[in-house]
């Protein structure tokens, strides 16, 4: 097998973040296997454990994890076997913790952790604000989906107003609600808010974020709406059909 040719002018730099990794072609599976030979089992396992810990801690705030961070903070010199380490870490997370490592953005390489197991019945022992925020989130996601997968910011806030949630006022439970919805939920990738071009004053479009699509589903959200309204999900024909069609 001929040695790997580098493109002229693109000699890989050392430890430069994600750039040199994407400039040189991604190692193929066989190349990774060969690179693995150069290291001991213990070394690789060590890296896998470090990555598992890293992901668990990074997930605390529910902000998606970037591959660049993983490479810089954990992988380091082992980047030539990156894919193997990630795969094994994923397996550990699944078998030991019941969590799934999901790449929600394959273009920018961003990961989240979600639960691999069905939700257990019983009271949530860890009482904090996260539960309340989840309630607010599903309400917004429901509104967006039932309105055709996208809603204008004016419509969303008008709807929330009916639930005593106002963007200008400090909320008893959520504090600065506007910040929670437009910043925290967006950073966590639960929501995606994009400006509508050529609107004056500027208007925004609210849609589901990449995390929402993985942590829940149109089917689940429709079931939630149906439960609240004490109707059958089939009551809303087009939404039901769309939910059934989406994996």
């Amino acid at each position: 097998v001929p040695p790997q040719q580098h493109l002229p002018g693109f000699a890989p730099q050392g430890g430069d973040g994600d750039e040199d990794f994407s400039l040189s072609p991604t190692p193929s599976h066989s190349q990774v296997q060969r690179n693995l030979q150069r290291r001991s089992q213990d070394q690789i396992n060590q890296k896998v454990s470090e990555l598992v810990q890293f992901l668990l801690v990074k997930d605390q705030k529910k902000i998606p994890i970037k591959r660049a961070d993983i490479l810089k903070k954990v992988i380091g010199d082992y980047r030539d076997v990156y894919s193997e380490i990630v795969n094994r870490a994923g397996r550990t997370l699944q078998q030991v913790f019941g969590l799934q490592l999901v790449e929600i953005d394959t273009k920018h390489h961003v990961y989240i952790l979600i639960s691999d197991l069905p939700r257990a019945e019983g009271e949530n022992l860890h009482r904090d604000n996260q539960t309340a925020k989840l309630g607010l989130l599903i309400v917004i996601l429901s509104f967006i989906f039932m309105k055709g997968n996208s809603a204008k910011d004016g419509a969303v806030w008008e709807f929330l107003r009916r639930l005593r949630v106002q963007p200008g006022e400090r909320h008893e439970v959520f504090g600065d609600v506007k910040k929670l919805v437009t910043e925290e939920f967006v950073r966590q990738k639960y929501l995606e808010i994009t400006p509508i071009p050529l609107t004056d004053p500027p208007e925004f479009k609210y849609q589901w974020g990449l995390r929402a699509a993985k942590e829940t589903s149109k089917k689940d959200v429709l079931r939630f709406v149906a439960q609240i309204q004490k109707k059958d999900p089939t009551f809303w024909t087009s939404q039901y059909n769309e939910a059934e069609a989406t994996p």
Partner: protein
Amino acid sequence: ENREDMLSSKSNRLTEALEEANKLFSGVSCAREAALDAQFLVLASNLGKEKANELHSEMTAFDSLAFAEDLLTFMGINRIEVEENDSDSEGISGGYLPSNAWHKLGEETEKYFRRAPSFHYMLGSFKSEPPVPRQRIERQKKATGGEAKRAMPAQLKKMEESHQEATEKEVERILGLLQTHFKNDPDTPISFFDLVIDPNSFARTVENIFHVSFIIRDGFARLKLDDDKLPIIEPSKDNEGKENDRGAGARNQIVISLNQQEWK
């Protein structure tokens, strides 16, 4: 400007506008006009997309008002008589929403999510700041408390309460002493050390410094250096003291260190 008008499913205004733009375009001769035309096309296509969206969601209309009402019901709203003037016009139904409303909803919601439970170390992690400064303050307070206990054993029911009172009483007593001395002899400032040092007790000395610091903090007295660079203390006239307090840069901090050797 006529967004809502154009969006209405009953109007053909969007089509009319497009046709007019088409006609105008044939008269276009310079780049600026073409740019305007392009801008108009973007606007028109956005409107067109929105119109199409509205078509879709009209197929199975979703009554968001009913959904909101049902949500409030689920969250345990306590409906009261709706007052005529305000609630209806704002579109918010009357009623009292309990404080755990959103928690209640959130708990029900969890089964629809596959959220990974957050991983936290059970005993927390290392704190980055050393706790040393806090310990020192606590020790000082405990010393004062101990003294107060000895001085008023009969009255001591709760340690904290008497400690608080004792401190205030002491501070007032010292201030009284200071003011009396000055009334009698207004031109002689008192040496700070003469005031605070108790020749028989080091602990008492420290305590005295502590009490005097309150007097100075509140502006009832001032510390100065005399010609020999030794600290002297004199009471300040009422308004003088308070004014100094608010002045910029009027507050200074002094650290006095005194160990047993020096005290002796």
